């Protein structure tokens, strides 16, 4: 269980990530495993990137999304736990102080989910067609 005063940060030696159109794309630089998190998951990754405390992140989510605090806390703990288990983030002694302000219109909440793609390197390793084929008169054999 995470404490409100626990600060989290991206494990930069091991992970690289960015948020595009609200979706976090994360790469484990050691293993080549890819991850993605949509919706609120993108917000969570951005907040971890800003070295926010667990309590501050929770405040931010509750302020901007239509969700009960207890649900948001459970979900945040789950995702943070998964990211910690994958070695993508880590605890840090201090971070940035933020005060959450309630949004005028709260966004629809959806449980954040960490999508994992563990087989990327396996798929890359499947024997590709031989390179260097530009000298071949490559013609279709099955056309009409």
């Amino acid at each position: 269980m995470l404490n409100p005063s626990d600060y989290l940060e991206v494990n930069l030696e091991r992970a690289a990530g960015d948020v595009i159109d609200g979706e976090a794309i994360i790469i484990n630089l050691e293993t080549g495993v890819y991850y993605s998190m949509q919706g609120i998951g993108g917000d969570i990754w951005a907040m971890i990137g800003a070295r926010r405390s667990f309590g501050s992140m929770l405040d931010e989510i509750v302020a901007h999304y239509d969700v009960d605090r207890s649900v948001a806390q459970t979900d945040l703990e789950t995702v943070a736990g998964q990211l910690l288990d994958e070695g993508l983030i880590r605890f840090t002694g201090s971070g940035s102080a933020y005060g959450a302000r309630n949004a005028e219109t709260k966004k629809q909440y959806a449980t954040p989910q960490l999508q994992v793609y563990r087989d990327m390197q396996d798929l890359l390793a499947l024997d590709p067609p031989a390179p260097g084929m530009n000298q071949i008169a490559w013609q279709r054999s099955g056309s009409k």
Partner: protein
Amino acid sequence: MRILLWSELYWPYIGGAEIFAANLIASLRGEGIEFLVVTSHHDRELPDADVHDGVPIRRLPFRAAIAGRDVASFIRALKETSAIKQEFAPDLIHMNAIGPSALFHLRTAGASSAPLLVTLQQEVLGTQLDGAGTLMAQVVDSAAWLVGCSQNVLEQLRAAHPAAIARSSRIYNGVEVPRLDPAPMPTHLHVLSLGRLVPAKGFDVALRAFAIVASRIPDARFTIAGDGAARDELVALAKELGLEERVAFTGWIEPDDVPRLLNDASVVVMPSRREGMPIVAVQAALMARPVVATAVGGLPEVVLDGENGLIVPGEDPESVAAAIIRIAGRELATTMGERGRRHALTTLAWSRTVASYHALYKALAEKATHAQSL
């Protein structure tokens, strides 16, 4: 109808899946279908935008972004993929084989509401679909329809992922009947292996088997046609086995020259370690050549054991050699070859493949249009 054909690699890269995709496009372009090919750059310097055989191709650095583990280039490729999808506005996305680039399709799913058709061109391992933590599993889950290129591949998919049973079918990767008629068997035994020279094809086993054959049949010869990363190793192995004078390495053979090459052979040997739908076996059957093959992937669906060839255990040069020697008599080879041609003409003809895909394209696109209008 607009089809975005997603192909891990495409011309000028050559492999069974790449040739299949190009042939399918060539055959369906005249049926009112507009294609755009989206593919990966891989390791050659090729234009980002290209045209081959009248079909536009967009190449993106998918594989480099993944292999380089570079978020910035990954996101650039995502943005470009989204833009391509929005601009082309396909009625259907046909993913020909699942490769690492499929991640870029999944992560840009919001850019197009077109249904996804996936052709599985390779063996499906249960571990690849074990849970939701793999790209394979997520592509399979997101597909409106899945096609196995052989019954074997289809059954592997259904066993590993029962949820796919109701939205999957088999369409063989057929081969067009060559204009060239099959020729009589050569008078001296000529063994042929044809394909990419990669470990998966097992041509090293074929060489070791031929060493046994050559010791029993002095005038036998062996041709290995194709090229690939394992070529140097195979040439060295032929030398090590003392077969330099008996084995010819031709390099790449143009597809249109394959029927002539097959006509010059007595038997085709395919000791594969992995296969999806083995086009070479179909080509051999169409040219009335018997095939000695392992029971891998779709091979036993093309090579009916004892009918138009012989099925042998994997990694077993002695068994391969025994099978070649058994077929070496011209009479049996001719009989098996004729049976193989009949089997290929009735089951594995390209026209059936094209008609099946055309019908599937229409059904999936119309279903999606209907769903959107509700």
